[in-house]
């Protein structure tokens, strides 16, 4: 390999750029005259040396670079080779191994963007211009250090439903201190109101208890019942929450006999309410929690049908599926006919998609103008499961299911549907514009109610079903957490559930680093899915906190205090809430407003850069001056 020098290695801090051009075994050198390129590159101002190699990514190639760094010949590096996506990391780590800062590096893509798409002289010319642009930028590069934000090895979980319990246990097992907050006196959330879990039939109480026991036993978990978040501040690794705790409201008051003894007693399961994990607050108070991440597990609430929707609220024989599940749980275990409140139930009509899959123009909006256009995902299986329970326990109680689509999507769920068919449940299918009508019977049916439907499976004919009971498979709605949404500035989707950054790239994260999602506050989920989501949130929290500090990219905004005039235009332009703030500083004895970047919150997008009238703010690693220098090099005609 030839070597030409045009700048002495004088050991000063002046930028001395080294240019390393790769042949890529002919991929580049067959179309680009690398010899000419090398000669011309050496003449670029500020370039100390230009070299070429058959494979710059190979060990000998990297060694060329490292040797020049070690000898002090160069202190800025440009590699011209394949796309940076392939080897930028390789070369940055070579810099590090040679004792240089990995950020004094710039890459020129002369394979994917030159030799593979252009040919002949124009290819060489373009390659040269890209190299001079990279060199121009390299001269302006400064060493950068990754940002380190100290992080408390502590996590806070809001909501002690199944997802919150799961997340708390996982985080505590992983070695973090955990604060588990619950608005009510009880852990267990909505699952506590269930009997058995579809499709596999585990007891809901056991599922809650097995996690609740671990929460109770775990020394790292502090459970705060009857607690609400009233204050929120900080950033990843360093959030602080203010909690308001209050004695339980009268309707939530728990008989003392239900309270587990102080110390490490067994958790107590109260059907339909949940699990008591210890003493409840007896007086009002405020608690400050300093924490590293916050996991939101605020859950869902079932849709409440409008008065008159399928007879709900008007006909006493109409109830929701959650109500029915509780009634069925409390009913006499078996018998030929299901008895509810002393009344024999021989025929049950179950109606799917109540408060889910609502269609504008067909369904009525709720009081606040919302329609639940989404599918609630869990109701089909829950309905099928309940139907099977009825049919196996009470052979003389018949079940009819009115559906739009049976969404038995998950493992073991289609099997529930088949089982329901074998259990002689009759299915009737309706179109959304022709929903079933629940009416008082004129007596001819022998039941209090009749459900009429235009049944698509019977060629659109109207079919009448006698019913002693109508069960509405209501969907899920997010719990009312507007206070948290406002306080923590949580993003909410059109469906009113909390909105993740991206369903695949960052599925359990909110835009604010360190705020995580677990379970049905994000979307309808069943218990398995909510537990997976909770464990996933715990995993994300663990990657953030495990090291005791959060390492962030150094590419964040930086204010030049000399230039800043405190106009605040950067604050206005900022896309990450709170990443830039105006602070009072004393300059020459005068108090003035100046911008300050909260590095942990800055995304490095540069929206502030464009907005600053005095060029006082820059993103490290991609400053405007660097881009201007690159454009100068590209626009230059000298090379031709």
């Amino acid at each position, binding site marked *: 390999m030839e070597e030409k020098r045009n700048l002495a290695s004088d050991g000063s801090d002046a930028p001395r750029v080294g240019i390393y051009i790769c042949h890529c075994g002919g991929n580049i050198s067959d179309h680009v005259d690398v010899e000419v390129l090398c000669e011309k590159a050496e003449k670029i101002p500020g370039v100390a040396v230009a070299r070429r190699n058959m494979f710059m990514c190979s060990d000998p190639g990297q060694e060329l670079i490292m040797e020049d760094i070690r000898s002090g010949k160069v202190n800025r590096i440009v590699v011209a080779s394949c796309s940076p996506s392939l080897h930028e990391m390789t070369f940055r780590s070579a810099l590090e191994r040679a004792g240089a800062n990995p950020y004094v590096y710039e890459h020129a893509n002369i394979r994917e963007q030159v030799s593979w798409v252009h*040919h002949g002289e124009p290819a060489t010319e373009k390659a040269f211009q890209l190299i001079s642009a990279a060199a121009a930028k390299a001269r302006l590069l400064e060493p950068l250090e990754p940002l380190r934000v100290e992080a408390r090895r502590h996590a806070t979980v809001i909501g002690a439903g199944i997802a919150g319990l799961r997340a708390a246990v996982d985080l505590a097992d992983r070695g973090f201190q955990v604060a588990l907050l619950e608005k009510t006196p009880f852990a267990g959330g909505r699952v506590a109101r269930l009997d058995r879990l579809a499709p596999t039939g585990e007891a809901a109480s056991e599922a809650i208890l097995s996690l609740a026991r671990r929460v109770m036993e775990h020394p790292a978990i502090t459970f705060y019942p009857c607690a609400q978040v009233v204050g929120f501040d900080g950033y990843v690794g360093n959030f602080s929450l203010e909690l308001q705790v209050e004695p339980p409201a009268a309707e939530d008051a728990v008989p003392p006999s239900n309270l587990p003894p102080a110390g490490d007693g067994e958790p107590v399961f109260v059907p339909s309410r949940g699990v008591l994990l210890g003493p409840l607050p007896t007086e009002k108070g405020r608690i400050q929690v300093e924490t590293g991440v916050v996991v939101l597990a605020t859950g869902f609430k079932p849709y409440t049908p409008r008065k008159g929707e399928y007879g709900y609220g008007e006909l006493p024989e109409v109830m929701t599926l959650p109500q029915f599940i509780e009634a069925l749980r409390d009913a006499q275990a078996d018998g030929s006919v299901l008895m509810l409140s002393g009344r024999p139930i021989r025929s049950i009509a179950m109606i799917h998609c109540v408060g889910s899959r609502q269609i504008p123009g067909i369904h009525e909006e709720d009081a606040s103008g919302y329609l639940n256009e989404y599918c609630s995902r869990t109701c089909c299986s829950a309905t099928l499961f309940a139907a099977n329970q009825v049919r196996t326990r009470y052979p003389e109680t018949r079940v009819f299911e009115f559906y739009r689509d049976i969404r038995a999507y998950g493992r073991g769920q289609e099997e529930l549907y088949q089982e329901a068919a074998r259990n002689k449940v009759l299915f009737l299918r309706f179109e959304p514009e022709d929903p079933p009508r629940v009416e008082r019977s004129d007596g001819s049916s022998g039941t209090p109610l009749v459900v009429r439907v235009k049944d698509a499976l019977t060629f659109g004919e109207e079919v009448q079903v006698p019913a002693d009971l109508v069960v509405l498979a209501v969907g899920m709605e997010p719990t009312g957490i507007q206070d948290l949404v406002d306080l923590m500035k949580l993003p909410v989707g059109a469906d009113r559930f909390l909105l993740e950054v991206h369903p695949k790239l960052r599925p359990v994260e909110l835009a604010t680093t360190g705020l995580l999602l677990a379970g049905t506050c994000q979307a309808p989920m069943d218990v398995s899915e909510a537990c997976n989501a909770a464990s996933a949130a715990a995993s994300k929290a663990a990657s953030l906190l495990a090291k005791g500090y959060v390492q962030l990219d150094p590419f964040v905004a930086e204010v030049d205090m000399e230039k800043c005039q405190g106009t605040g235009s950067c604050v206005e332009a900022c896309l990450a809430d709170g990443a830039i703030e105006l602070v009072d500083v004393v300059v020459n004895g005068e108090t003035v407003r100046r911008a300050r970047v909260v590095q942990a919150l800055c995304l490095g997008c540069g929206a502030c850069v464009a907005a600053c009238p005095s060029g006082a703010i820059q993103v490290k690693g991609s400053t405007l001056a660097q881009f201007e220098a690159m454009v100068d090099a590209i626009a230059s005609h000298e090379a031709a």
Partner: protein
Amino acid sequence: MGAPAGEGKILILATESCAYPGADAVGQAHITYPANTYILKVKAPVLFPEEFYLRCFDKGISGIIVMSCGVECPYEGAYEALAKRIDRVYQLMKQRGLDIRRLRLTSICTVCTRAFVNEVKQMQEVIRELGPPGSETKTSEEAAAAAESA
């Protein structure tokens, strides 16, 4: 320069998460396109102030294609802010008698090879028609009208 003397240069501002890998995909597919194109990798083009674009034209860049991630942008709100900025750049270009077709905002994904080549071709035609920046013969109003009809 990559282009034969006399041919203008096209600057491409390509986002590192979408358009830059998109340009690489064109390379991997060995699809040829004009060599007078210079791609700068940027995190989010929202970083560039209005004057940056004008200065590029002052320096002799004939056309600029901003290849963003569009609505898939990883920085929430950045695309909208960028679109607004480009609108303001158009106003300034009109004031200076620069044909606004010299600047285009588009979104290119990581495998949008055809869209990438198309954009380059279209800009190539524009700068061929217009010549170097500042040589527009039309009045700015005519240029704007031409741009709108195009």
